[in-house]
C-alpha cells in the first residue's frame, strides 16, 4: 500500500469516526442534556454547597465556610466536651441517624422473611397468579392513601387496637402518638408495602433453581427442611444479598411514610435522615448544613453500593 493510500484511508476513517461520534451524540443529546442539567450539575453543586453558608436570599449571600457545617451537624465541640453519647442521644444528626439505622435494621430482615415466605408458598402452587397480584398490590398503591388508612386503623379506638384489646393486651394509645409504637407503625407499613416487590424477586430466583439440584437432594434422603436449608437457601444467597443491599439503600431514603404518618414525632422519635434534611433545607432555610447532612446520606448510600460491587463476585453463582 502506498503512503498516499494509507493517508487517504486514515483520513476517511477519521471522517467516519467523527461522523459516527456526531451520530452517537445526536442519540445521546436529548437525554444527556436533561440529565446533565437536572441531575449531574445538582449532584456536583450539592457537594460544593455543603462547604458554604447560605441561609436563603440572593445568591450573593453565599459565604465559604469550609468544614464548619460538618462541625455543626456533628456537634463536634459538644462531643469533644461530653463524649460520643452526646452525639447519639442529643444531637439532631445523631438521633436521626440512630432512628434511621434502627428502622433499617428491623425493616430489612422482616421484609426479607415475609417476602421469602410468600415466595416459597407461591412457588408450591402452580398458577396462583391471583395471589401474586394481591401481594404485589400494596407496592403500586399510593403512599398518601395507604398511610392515612393505616394511621386511622392504628388510632386509639381503631380496629387494630380493638384486636389487641381482644387479645388481652392493654394498649389504648394511638400508635403514631407513642414514641415506641410510632416507629413500629412506620416499620409495619413499610414491610407491608414492600414485601410483594421482593417476593417477586425471590419467586424468580426460586424458579431459577435447577430442578436436578432438588432431585439430587431428595435422592440423598434430605427431608423438606434439610432440602430448604442445604439447597434452597444457598441458592438464594445472591438474591438475598442483592435484595438486602437494595433495601438498605431505600430504607436510608425513607421520607414519605414518616412525613405523612408522624412528621418525625412524637418528640424526635421518628425523625429520619431525610426528614432532617428536608427540615433544615425547607423550613429552617440553612442550605449549607442541609447539604452537609445530605452528604452524610450520600456517603452511607455510596458506601453500601461499593460494598455491593466489591462482594458481588463473592456471592455470584459462577
Amino acid at each position, binding site marked *: 500500500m502506498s503512503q498516499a493510500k494509507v493517508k487517504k484511508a486514515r483520513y476517511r476513517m477519521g471522517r467516519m469516526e467523527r461522523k459516527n461520534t456526531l451520530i452517537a451524540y445526536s442519540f445521546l443529546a436529548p437525554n444527556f442534556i436533561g440529565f446533565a442539567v437536572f441531575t449531574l450539575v445538582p449532584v456536583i453543586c450539592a457537594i460544593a454547597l455543603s462547604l458554604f453558608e447560605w441561609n436563603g436570599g440572593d445568591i450573593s449571600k453565599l459565604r465559604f465556610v469550609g468544614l464548619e457545617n460538618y462541625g455543626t451537624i456533628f456537634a463536634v465541640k459538644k462531643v469533644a466536651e461530653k463524649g460520643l453519647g452526646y452525639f447519639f442521644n*442529643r444531637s439532631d444528626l445523631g438521633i436521626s441517624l440512630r432512628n434511621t439505622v434502627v428502622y433499617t435494621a428491623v425493616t430489612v430482615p422482616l421484609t426479607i422473611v415475609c417476602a421469602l415466605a410468600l415466595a416459597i408458598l407461591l412457588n408450591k402452587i402452580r398458577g396462583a397468579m391471583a395471589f401474586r397480584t394481591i401481594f404485589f398490590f400494596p407496592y403500586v398503591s399510593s403512599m398518601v392513601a395507604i398511610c392515612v388508612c393505616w394511621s386511622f386503623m392504628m*388510632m386509639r379506638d381503631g380496629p387494630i387496637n380493638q384486636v389487641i384489646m381482644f387479645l388481652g393486651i392493654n394498649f389504648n394509645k394511638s400508635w403514631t402518638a407513642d414514641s415506641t409504637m410510632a416507629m413500629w407503625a412506620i416499620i409495619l407499613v413499610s414491610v407491608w408495602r414492600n414485601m410483594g416487590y421482593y417476593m417477586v424477586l425471590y419467586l424468580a430466583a426460586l424458579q431459577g433453581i435447577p430442578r436436578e439440584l432438588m432431585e439430587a437432594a431428595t435422592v440423598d434422603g434430605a427431608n423438606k427442611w434439610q432440602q430448604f436449608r442445604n439447597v434452597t437457601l444457598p441458592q438464594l444467597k445472591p438474591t438475598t444479598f442483592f435484595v438486602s443491599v437494595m433495601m438498605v439503600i431505600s430504607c436510608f431514603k425513607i421520607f414519605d411514610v414518616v412525613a405523612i404518618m408522624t412528621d418525625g*414525632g*412524637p418528640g424526635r*422519635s421518628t425523625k429520619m435522615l431525610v426528614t432532617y434534611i428536608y427540615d433544615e433545607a*425547607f423550613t429552617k432555610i440553612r442550605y449549607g448544613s442541609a447539604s452537609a447532612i445530605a452528604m452524610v446520606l450520600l456517603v452511607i448510600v455510596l458506601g453500601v453500593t461499593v460494598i455491593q460491587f466489591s462482594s458481588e463476585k463473592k456471592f455470584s453463582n459462577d
Partner: protein
Amino acid sequence: MKKMLSVLLAALMMVSLLAVPALAEDQVLTVVTWDATTTPYLTAQKEAFEASHPGVKIEYIDVDAADWPTKAPSILAQPNDKSDVFMIKEIDQLINWQAQGYAAPLTDYIDGYDMSGFLGTEANYAVDGVQYAIPFRSDFWVLFYNKDLFDAAGVAYPTNDLTWDQYAELAKKLTDKDKGVYGTHYHTWLSTVVNWAVCGTDYTLADGKYDNLLYFYKLYQDLEDSGACMAYDELKASGLKYAAAFENGNVAMLPMGYWLVSTVIGDIKAGNASLNWGIAAVPHADGVAAGSSFGNLTGAMISAKSEQKDLAWEYISWLGGPEGAKATASVGARPAWVSAEVADVMASVDGFPADENSKGALLPASVAMEWPVADKVADIKTIVNDEHSLIMAREITPEEGIEEMNERVAELFN
C-alpha cells in the same frame, strides 16, 4: 378590492382582539397567604379593597396553614417570583425574611402614614428602626364557651375574672361522660397548654427557663386524667380541628385565639353549625391581673421582587389602616388598628354574642406576645415543641420534659 377589504377587516379584528383585553385588564396584586378559602376575613378584605379600588384585583396564593413554614420561604426563594405581598404569620419569620433580603423596606412610604392605631405593636415589624411590614390583625386568646352546655348542667357562665384552678373545677363539673360532653378542649398546640405562663408577666418562652410551665402541665394532665378533655394522643392522630370540636357542641369550654370568632359566626350563618356561645377572658394565674392574655400579630409585607410596589403599599397601608380594619372586624376578626369605631364594629357583628360579658372580653388587660423576637427563636421553638409532644404523649413526666427543655435550650447558646 374585495380581497384587500377582507384582509383589512381581518387585521382590524386582530388588533381589536389584542387591544380590548389590554385596555380592560385589571391590575392584579398577588398576595401570598394561608387558608384563604376558609378564612372569612380574607374574603371580606378582598371584597372591600376591590370595591374601593376599581381596576385592582387581589389574587390570593393559598397555602395550607400547616405547610406555611416551608412553603412561604420556598416561594420567596424563587428568583423570578412575581408575588407582591406576603402575609406574616409569625413575627420571627419576618425577621428572617428581612435578613435574607426578601422584604422591601417601607422607608419611602411610611412618612405621614398614621400608625397611632396600632398602639405600638408595629414596632415588632421594625428592624434597626426600619419598618418592614404593617400589622393588620392582632389576636389575643379568649375562652370560648358553649352556653347550651352550661345551661344544661345548671352552671353559671364563666366570668372575665376566673383563676386557672376555678376553671379546672368548672371543666370537671361540666363533664358528662354519659352524654359524651367534655368540660374543656385543648387543641394539640403548645400554646393551648402552656403559653399562659407568659400572660401578664415579663417572662417569655425564649428565656430558656421552663419551670413556669410545670403548673400548666399538671393542670392539663389532671383534666385529661379525669376525662374532662379529649386525650392528646387521640387528637394528634385524628387531627380533629378545634373549630369542629367546638361546633360539634360537646365541648363546654375552649381556650382559643380570637380568630375563631369569625369562623364560628361564619359557620353558624352558613348553617354548618348551630350552637349558643359566648366568650370570656382567659383564666389567669394567681397574682396575675384578670384579663391578661397572650396573642399574636398578623401583618403584611411587600416582596422585594414585587414589580408594583406602589400598588402593594396602597394595599397593605389600606389593610392595616382604619378602612381595612373595619373590613377585618366586620366578620368578627380583631384588627391591629384599635379605635372606638372599630371596637363598635367588632361588637356589632351579626352573630357576635350579645351579652355584656362577651363584650367585656374584647378588652384584655394586657396582651403578651406568644413568642418574642429573639436570637435562635426558631430552634428554641423546635426544642420546646419536641419535648412538649413527649410530655403530652406521656412519654416523659412534665418535670423531665422541662429539664430537657432547660438543658437543650442552654446548649444552643454555649
